[in-house]
């Protein structure tokens, strides 16, 4: 009896509680998690967010519909174009605007470029979390820079694009722009090859990533996880295929699926998704027709945003943002401002399974699991 008690006492180690963040080099912003550590092992983890809460939804409810567009850029600032896309789609649904053919193609091209930008950035930052000293990140940034320069040329800004309009886009693509995109698309596979040679077979990376943070497909679907995180768990769900919004059903592309749902799968699924995006771009660039870039009906709206009053009703528009299902829910009461405006942010919802993935892993794994979920705090906290 006594011996067991003694054993118990010596065995009882104290739990160390650590606050990761909000000021920490690898929490991707001001995210905080309270981690309970038993040695290096995680026995409890609580994500805490809200440090970057900027009142996005409330601000939007006091603004005319068109003026919300630049605010959506600030949600997920790594790929602002996907947010623009989602919001424009919602309002088009609400007001019943048609989008001209050429504008649809331009939208798809821009959204896929944004996806590529997002994925290479995420992979780069994930490697940084793994401890690689900026090399993969800077290689990724080198390529990203080319695409961002293009964005600057087309949309006027590198990150805060504010490019989509209800019923079209703001500015047309010139032939030079198309040629520049073509050049990027044709050069990208060479970069991907180099990137993969640097990373995918690296034994240290495989050791760190494989069988870490496993998320089963069932848990993922139950928790409402979307995007590459869900697909890495082997669930075939991509809104581009499911909804076929915009003109995605015209393109021939595949959905890469993961095998185990661990960090490595999430990493590699993203690499494969870049390849599929390149395929879409390739097709879109050959097929893009001439024509209008914005619906005639919504043209006056550009000059007088405050006069735009969509009919009473509600709409939910969703796109496959690089992070998952990005949805905008807007209720209109016939006034120039939305009565209710809500964002379904994939970053936030994907974060909910963080604890489940991290329990029992080492502290270093928690960082890369967080990195592999791919959160942007601007979107999580809104």
């Amino acid at each position, binding site marked *: 009896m006594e011996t067991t008690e003694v054993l118990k006492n010596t065995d009882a180690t104290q739990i*160390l509680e*650590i606050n990761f963040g909000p000021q*920490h*080099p*690898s929490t991707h912003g001001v995210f905080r998690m309270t981690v309970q*550590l038993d040695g*290096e092992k995680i026995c409890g983890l609580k994500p805490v967010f809200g440090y970057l809460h900027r009142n996005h939804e409330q601000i939007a409810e006091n603004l005319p519909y068109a003026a919300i567009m630049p605010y959506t850029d600030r949600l997920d600032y790594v790929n602002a174009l996907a947010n623009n896309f989602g919001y424009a789609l919602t309002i088009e649904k609400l007001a019943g605007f048609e989008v001209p053919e050429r504008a649809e193609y331009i939208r798809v091209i821009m959204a896929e470029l944004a996806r590529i930008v997002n994925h290479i950035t995420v992979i780069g930052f994930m*490697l*940084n*979390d*793994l*401890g*690689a*000293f*900026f*090399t993969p990140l*800077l*290689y990724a940034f*080198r390529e990203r820079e080319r695409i961002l320069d293009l964005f600057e040329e087309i949309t006027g800004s590198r990150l805060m694009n504010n490019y989509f309009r209800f019923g079209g886009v703001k500015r047309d693509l010139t032939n030079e722009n198309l040629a520049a995109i073509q050049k990027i698309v044709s050069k990208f596979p060479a970069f991907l090859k180099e990137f993969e040679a*640097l990373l995918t*077979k*690296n*034994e*240290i*990376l*495989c*050791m*760190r990533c*494989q*069988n870490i943070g496993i998320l089963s497909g069932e848990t993922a679907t139950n928790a409402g996880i979307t995007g590459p995180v869900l697909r890495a768990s082997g669930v*075939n769900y991509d809104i581009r*295929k499911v909804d076929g919004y915009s003109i995605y059903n015209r393109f021939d*592309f*595949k*959905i*890469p*699926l*993961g*095998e*185990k749902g661990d960090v*490595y*799968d999430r990493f*590699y*699924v993203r690499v*494969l998704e870049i390849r*599929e995006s390149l395929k879409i771009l390739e097709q879109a660039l050959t097929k893009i027709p001439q024509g209008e870039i914005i619906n005639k009906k919504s043209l006056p709206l550009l000059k007088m945003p405050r006069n735009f009053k969509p009919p009473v009703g509600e709409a939910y528009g969703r796109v496959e943002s690089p992070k998952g299902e990005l949805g905008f829910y807007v209720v209109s009461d016939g006034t120039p401002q939305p009565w209710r405006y809500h964002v379904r942010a994939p970053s936030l919802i994907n974060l909910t399974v963080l604890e489940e993935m991290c329990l029992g892993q*080492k*502290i*270093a*794994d928690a*960082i890369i699991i967080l990195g592999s979920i791919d959160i942007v705090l601007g979107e999580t906290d809104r």
Partner: protein
Amino acid sequence: MTKILEFIDSIFVAAKAWILCLLGHFLPAWIVVLVSITISGVVILCLGPVIMMYLTLLERKLIGRIQNRYGPNRVGIWGLLQPIADGIKMFTKEDIVPANADKVIHLLAPIAIVVPALMIFLVVPFGKGMTTVNLNIGLLYFIAVSSITILPIFMGSWASRNKYSLLGGMRTAAQMISYEIPMTLAVVPAIMMSQSLATNAIVLAQAGGHGLNWFIFTPWGIVGFIIFFLCATAECNRPPFDLPEAESELVAGFHTEYSGMKFALFYMAEYMNAFTLCGIAATLFLGGWQGPFLPSWLWFFGKTFILICVMIWFRGTFPRFRVDHLMAFAWKFLLPLTLINILLTALWQFTSNLAAWCGSILVLGISLWTLVKLNRTFVPEKRHYPLES
């Protein structure tokens, strides 16, 4: 011609001897001895920090190039004054001590860490006759002193009263003690073959044969060298073994709570350790200061800097290990390999012909294969990614 070369070769030794002779004319012998010690000491005390300063610059430049950018190039030509600017910045920074820290130990740790780093310089043979103290147990001294480094790091991490620091300190202790063992055992073959613990004698044992007598040109030598080099990387907490400071996990690990000059001292110790460990690696396996044409000290520095560049190359390429993988790598992989290596070296004493070459390669290959098979966690899984529509 050869005379000029010899003169350049021994220029530092000759200069010191000349000064001592000059003083010997009018000073008692014991003062001359004191002056001799002082000269060596001052040279080392200057050499260490200067090497450290320019290693940081070299590292930043090389990593910059690896990442397709210029390194620092604003301060002075090619950024050559950058380390001095950094030094001034470090000196003028506020020294912050956490309120709850153990102030004495917090202060002592950065001072204590520089001492062993400087002490190792004593046994490094910089050139022909340029070993500061030619100890007959030089290697033993090196191993003993280099393992002291753990203590100040742990002192610093404990005294900071910071959880990140504490975790970093714990990792350091575990990591450095573990890697000490394969490192020591990797050195053993070199000692066995040269039959001496003195660093100078080990260099001399690799003489002749137009450089082909370097220990690295034997099967046990190359294995020993690789293991020693990996362990050295781990010993001075360089990536991919930089767990104690693990920037992305532990903020800055054991020196999270240090700022200003104290922080700089930790850095200094790290870089000086990197230099001395590379120097010792060059001494043990790459023939030390031996080499044709060029003066011996140039050979030594050249070899050392190539090894340091490899360390920097590692840093530019690899992600970090995880703590359990790191330990497993030391205990389950490197340790058995060093033991096999010692066995091979013992056999090499008797035969060193072609058959021995083939035999040892075979043995090493088999043992490597077996170890990889036994350590399945290290082997990447093959994954298949279905593309569905």
